[in-house]
């Protein structure tokens, strides 16, 4: 998913002796395979991950690790394992998350099964490096998102990021990782941009997989950047793994006039974020999800209400395997025009 294959590969290759196969980037072929063997009305992340699994198996993988939970994604591993068995693939699929929680003892057992010589100390050591690596990556990504739309030399952010990920793959110690992070942070800040004082700022919220895998949202962030828009997005792996349990309580408290309970996955988080974006003065909100994503469908009417109360425009996109790119383009363009017109007339409206 996105660039997170790098830390995942880093962690596994250091703690087990098995050969780790890097997943290929998602392409049209991945999704074609995934769709062929998936139930028709399951949400798109199922199709993407199944496609990736089959591509991995064809490359020689015989152990697959899946981590997911929160919504019906929690049952996907079992279902996918059954589909793979029916297709005649003899593989073992481990799900690290059960019933929405991670049980350390269970994970230890799984790791022992995968590699009997698995050492818990090594696991903790490299686990902590990986955690830091993900946090550093997400920090850098935040900076990139706010600035990439204004880079003078096109592609300079992306190029530097690839170089950074390549260096991250080879670290062995915390010190080395921290030094690399500091070095790249400086270099990212050195990239020349022509950011004006008043830019159009958009917040992206929605279902986590579609947000984090650029292929599945038709490179939404890249398209927005090409329109010179500053982007803020909350969902990343650091958030899901390390911040969510704290943040969600805060979100529920802040949005008590709209919701009382959590609604599964990130639905309640997104309502909290929408309110935050409105208050912080963002010009617009884009909500994206894969088709048939139940928690987000539940959040949509509430989001409409929040945005109506604060008079901030919101637009909803549902991505499926057959979504027409031209249709997305037209709606995004219109959304941008609308925000631009509103911005120009901000003073006039506030006077009335």
């Amino acid at each position: 998913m996105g660039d997170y294959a790098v830390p995942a590969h880093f962690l596994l290759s250091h703690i087990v002796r098995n050969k780790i196969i890097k997943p290929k980037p998602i392409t049209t072929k991945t999704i074609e395979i995934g769709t062929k063997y998936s139930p028709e009305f399951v949400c798109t992340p199922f199709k993407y991950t199944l496609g990736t699994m089959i591509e991995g198996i064809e490359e020689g993988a015989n152990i697959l690790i899946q981590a997911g939970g929160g919504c019906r994604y929690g049952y996907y591993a079992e279902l996918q394992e059954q589909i793979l068995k029916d297709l005649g693939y003899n593989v073992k699929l481990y799900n690290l998350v059960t019933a929405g929680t991670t049980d350390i003892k269970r994970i230890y057992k799984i790791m022992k099964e995968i590699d009997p010589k698995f050492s818990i100390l090594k696991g903790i050591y490299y686990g902590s490096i990986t955690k830091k690596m993900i946090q550093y990556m997400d920090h850098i990504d935040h900076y990139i998102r706010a600035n990439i739309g204004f880079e003078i030399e096109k592609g300079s952010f992306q190029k530097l990021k690839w170089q950074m990920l390549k260096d991250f793959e080879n670290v062995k110690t915390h010190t080395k990782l921290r030094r690399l992070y500091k070095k790249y942070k400086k270099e990212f800040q050195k990239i020349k941009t022509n950011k004006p004082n008043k830019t159009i700022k958009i917040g992206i919220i929605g279902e986590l997989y579609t947000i984090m895998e650029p292929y599945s949202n038709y490179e939404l962030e890249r398209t927005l950047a090409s329109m010179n828009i500053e982007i803020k997005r909350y969902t990343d792996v650091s958030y899901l793994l390390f911040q969510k349990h704290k943040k969600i309580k805060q979100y529920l408290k802040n949005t008590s006039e709209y919701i009382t309970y959590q609604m599964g996955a990130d639905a309640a988080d997104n309502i909290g974020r929408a309110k935050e974006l409105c208050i912080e003065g963002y010009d617009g909100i884009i909500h994206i999800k894969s088709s048939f994503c139940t928690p987000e469908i539940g959040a949509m009417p509430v989001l409409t209400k929040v945005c109506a109360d604060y008079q901030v425009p919101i637009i909803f996109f549902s991505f499926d395997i057959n979504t027409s790119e031209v249709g997305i383009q037209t709606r995004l363009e219109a959304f941008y025009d609308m925000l631009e017109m509103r911005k120009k007339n901000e003073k006039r409206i506030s006077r009335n």
Partner: protein
Amino acid sequence: MKKGYLGIDIGSISTKGVILDENNQILESSYIWTEGNPIEAVKRLLKELQNKTKDITIYGIGTTGSARKLIGLMVDADVVKNEITAHAIGTTQFYKNARTILEIGGQDSKIILLKDGIITDYAMNTLCAAGTGSFLSSQSKRLGVEIEDFGTLALKSKNPVKIAARCTVFAESDLIHKAQVGYQKEDIIAGLCRSVVLNYLNNVGKGKKIEEPIVFQGGVSKNKGVVKYFNEILKTEVIVDPNSHLMGAIGIAIMAHQKQSKTPKNLKILDISFETKGRECEGCSNHCEILRIYKDHKFIESWGSKCGKVS
């Protein structure tokens, strides 16, 4: 010689063109069927407009509609913009205080909410063509009625039938059923017009606050039956401009005017050959559909590559 600004709106079903003068008033307009070939349609459209306007020099061109990008390249347009913005700008030119624009076209339908001439919210139908012009035109063929007579026939009905409005496939089978049990043609047609309105309000207009004044436009606004049911269901009068089908073209012509181009445009593209060739790239497993555009047999641009390395 008068100065003129040309706006072209190339939709899925029809192609519209207008020429505006310095004060954004319509000098000439034209409305023809696209017939699945936007390039030929635009050539015919321009020929028609040129025959009508001998003493006008064009100083700006804008394109909108689903073929805007291709035609924009072909006519060397100053502005290429989506139809939502174009419709809003065109409408506010004539109805300064309009609050809601209802638009039903051939393949898509949209709702635009405005305040003080600024778009505040909009929605567009997704995936499905239920309740759009193409559904009405395919049903008119099935019933053996000219689409132009559809509205007048609908007005004659005293007892419109109820038709399942959610989905065109269900609507069509429901329609066949109603015909087979012997309903009058005008009752069925009236029911169809009503179902278009209900479908529109339930899908595109869902959750949107429709405030007056309401302007109804797009090709379907020419259908008196649909207008009648909008009035009935919204319990108010919707405004239908005599040029309601041209609003997109007018809007884009206004935007072309705003560009204030100093050089006159050459409209000799009628004799130039213009074609696109599609192929599937075999470079990786993405299999992108690469479109190459040739003007006068010379390659000018390509679209569709995901990696940007292939043209």
